């Protein structure tokens, strides 16, 4: 498993101190606080990292993923969140259907190239899936015109028995709802009461709102009692509702059990029963048989914009056009925080082979494997996204490992590994275009605090890793990337993963043009001294699982 590094977002901790301490990384529950860098945002006003969980999301527009038509939010509700134009989903494979004219009449002699096919094509038109070659003529759906298919298909939907039944129910209840809503607003004190409901749907909705719900305190108690009396009076007047037709028997889909059982008794192939993926795309009760599946209008997608939860500053704002994937406002953490990549280099002891008699098949994976009782170097490469150079200071957080009750296991609960990193701040150059960088003069710079002043950086290759040449310290500085080396020493009884929290603090000059008080020219140069800002964040470094000592001993012996 490759070593990973994730960033901590403080949204899940309750502490309100300026720098929150992240949860101990070895607990499984703390993985929800850590995120990879590309999923994080950064709020400039609050100067804080925000993650996907803490941002507030709001919809900025709806569009059809097929025709990329932006649907105004008013018609979204009217069209039931689906595309109103010619976009349909194949019921068989859920791909997009295309509108296709029928074949021209066969001339009979088989000379196809001589027939000039008209661009519009001939009616009847039908829907055709290019992928699985399903077409709507199999279920008998054809169209006369190639446009406005949704309207033409609406007629089919409307004639389904369920929707007819629903229409009749609405008509039946409408007079009662109208009278009850007319009587209650006369007692209400709110001036903004909508007395006459133009549609039965809104009348039903407002009646539902005024309904008596147990456990919830009554809204407008005075009117409640009076309108309750009215309603009971109305109830007595309401006559029996007779459904037009027995719905359970009429609709074949999702109906009574007997129809389904009969069908299942007579199926010949498994393909006759609709699969789960085919069925749950349907919003209503879905048909059981594959031959009953109908093409669906394509559901709309939404474009969302994200805001910081505390200061309501917009972090992400997409462009209005559906086909553009850019953003008007894009405050992502990768533009503010240095990107850190952790890597475990291949251990140098492999070169001389004297350390252990490693078998060849294990040798290839030694780079990622951590054995108990060993010390491993690792690299951290920091990339600076800012246009100013930064000074980075790393700090490993002490792990407070809880001791368990068992005495023998308590030994294993000690901090199982020790991490040493360069403690003094090191610079990372500013981000600039590739051609602006000078040649690599200090590829192998000597770090300030490396233990061995070995200037030959490449000496690690030929000599083995027994001498501590430059494992800890700044290893390499190239363009805007600085690679530092650290070392982790794993205890003999260690178990689990090598995971530790690391505090990264970096200081940068932000030359905000602070207007000086006096405004005099000679003093302006003084006042424009750029202020140095520090920002720090926590990360968790995961170097991989530890192979316990007994296994490795067994492999050796």
């Amino acid at each position: 498993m490759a070593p990973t590094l994730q960033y901590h977002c403080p949204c899940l901790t309750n502490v309100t101190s300026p720098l929150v301490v992240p949860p101990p990384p070895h607990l499984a529950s703390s993985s929800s606080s850590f995120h990879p860098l590309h999923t994080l945002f950064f709020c400039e006003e609050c100067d804080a990292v925000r993650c996907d969980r803490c941002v507030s999301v709001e919809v900025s527009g709806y569009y059809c993923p097929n025709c990329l038509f932006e649907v105004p939010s008013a018609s979204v509700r009217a069209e039931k969140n689906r595309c109103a134009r010619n976009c349909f989903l194949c019921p068989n494979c859920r791909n997009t259907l295309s509108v296709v004219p029928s074949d021209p009449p066969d001339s009979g002699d088989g000379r196809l190239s001589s027939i000039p096919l008209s661009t519009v094509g001939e009616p009847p038109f039908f829907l055709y899936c290019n992928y699985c070659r399903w077409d709507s003529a199999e279920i008998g759906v054809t169209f006369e015109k190639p446009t406005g298919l949704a309207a033409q298909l609406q007629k089919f939907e409307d004639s389904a028995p369920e929707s007819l039944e629903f229409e009749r129910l609405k008509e039946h209840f409408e007079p009662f709802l109208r009278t009850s809503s007319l009587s209650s607003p006369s007692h209400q004190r709110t001036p903004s009461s909508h007395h006459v409901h133009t549609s039965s749907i809104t009348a039903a909705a407002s009646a539902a709102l005024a309904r008596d719900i147990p456990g919830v305190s009554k809204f407008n108690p005075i009117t409640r009692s009076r309108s309750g009396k009215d309603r009971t009076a109305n109830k007595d007047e309401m006559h029996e509702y007779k459904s037009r037709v027995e719905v359970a028997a009429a609709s074949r889909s999702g109906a009574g059990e007997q129809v389904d059982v009969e069908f299942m008794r007579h199926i010949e192939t498994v393909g006759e029963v609709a699969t789960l993926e085919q069925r749950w795309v349907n919003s209503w009760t879905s048909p059981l048989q594959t031959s009953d599946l109908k093409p669906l209008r394509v559901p709309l997608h939404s474009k969302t914009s994200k805001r910081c939860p505390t200061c309501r500053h917009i972090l992400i704002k997409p462009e209005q056009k559906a086909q553009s994937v850019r953003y008007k406002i894009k405050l992502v953490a990768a533009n503010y925080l240095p990107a850190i990549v952790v890597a475990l280099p291949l251990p140098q002891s492999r070169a001389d082979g004297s350390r252990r008699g490693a078998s060849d098949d294990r040798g290839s994976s030694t780079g990622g494997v951590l054995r108990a009782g060993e010390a491993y170097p690792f690299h951290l490469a920091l990339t600076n996204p800012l246009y100013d150079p930064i000074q980075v200071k790393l700090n490993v957080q002490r792990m407070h490992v809880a001791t368990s009750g068992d005495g023998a296991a308590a030994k294993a609960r000690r901090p199982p590994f020790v991490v040493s990193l360069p403690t003094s701040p090191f610079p990372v150059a500013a981000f600039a275009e590739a051609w602006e960088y000078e040649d690599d003069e200090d590829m192998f710079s000597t770090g300030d605090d490396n233990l061995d002043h070995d200037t030959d950086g490449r000496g690690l290759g030929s000599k083995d890793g027994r001498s501590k040449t430059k494992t800890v310290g700044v290893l390499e500085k190239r363009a805007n990337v600085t690679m530092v080396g650290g070392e982790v020493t794993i205890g003999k009884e260690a178990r689990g993963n090598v995971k530790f929290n690391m505090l990264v603090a970096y200081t940068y000059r932000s030359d905000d043009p602070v207007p000086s008080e006096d405004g005099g020219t000679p003093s302006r140069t003084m006042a424009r001294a750029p202020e140095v800002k520090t920002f720090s964040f926590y990360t968790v470094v995961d170097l991989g699982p530890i192979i316990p000592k007994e296994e490795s001993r067994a492999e050796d012996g």
Partner: protein
Amino acid sequence: MAPIRDKFTIHSKAIVCQDVELKGDITIGSGTIVHPKATIFAIAGAIVIGSGCIIEESAIIVNRRKEIMRIGDDNLFEIGCRVESPAIGNFNTISTRARVHHTVRIGSYCVIGAACVVVPTEEESLGDYTVFYGPASERRTWSGRGKVQEADLRHKHTEYLREMLPKFNRLRRGDGT
């Protein structure tokens, strides 16, 4: 193993680019277009390709059986596909990165979807209008509607390639021996 004797019979109206790897006894019919970087290996037996076929880049057509592999007319072998089937009919489409085993015989007007793998363990002969699709290579039968338009499109495709390919690619001239 006997050495493979190359014998290419390429129709004068066929367009075969220079970068194509041909091996063995291969016959290519009139109007067929073979894009560069295609591979046609007739290792054990011969391969006969009909007219109007389009073999795109990285397509691999291999015959490892002794019997002659016959490919019909107007087929389309898309990029990256691998075909070992001993008999293929007309107007088929083998989509990108599909794989067809040597145990299958394909009829006419079939469509093997993208990345579909048709590898039955025993000999099978696909009827006409069979369609394979989906990641699990489910199959179903096409009704045949729209086949005239698709045939027309295939011809237009071939016409266009015949015009444009020689402008940008070197063609293999003459027959190899």
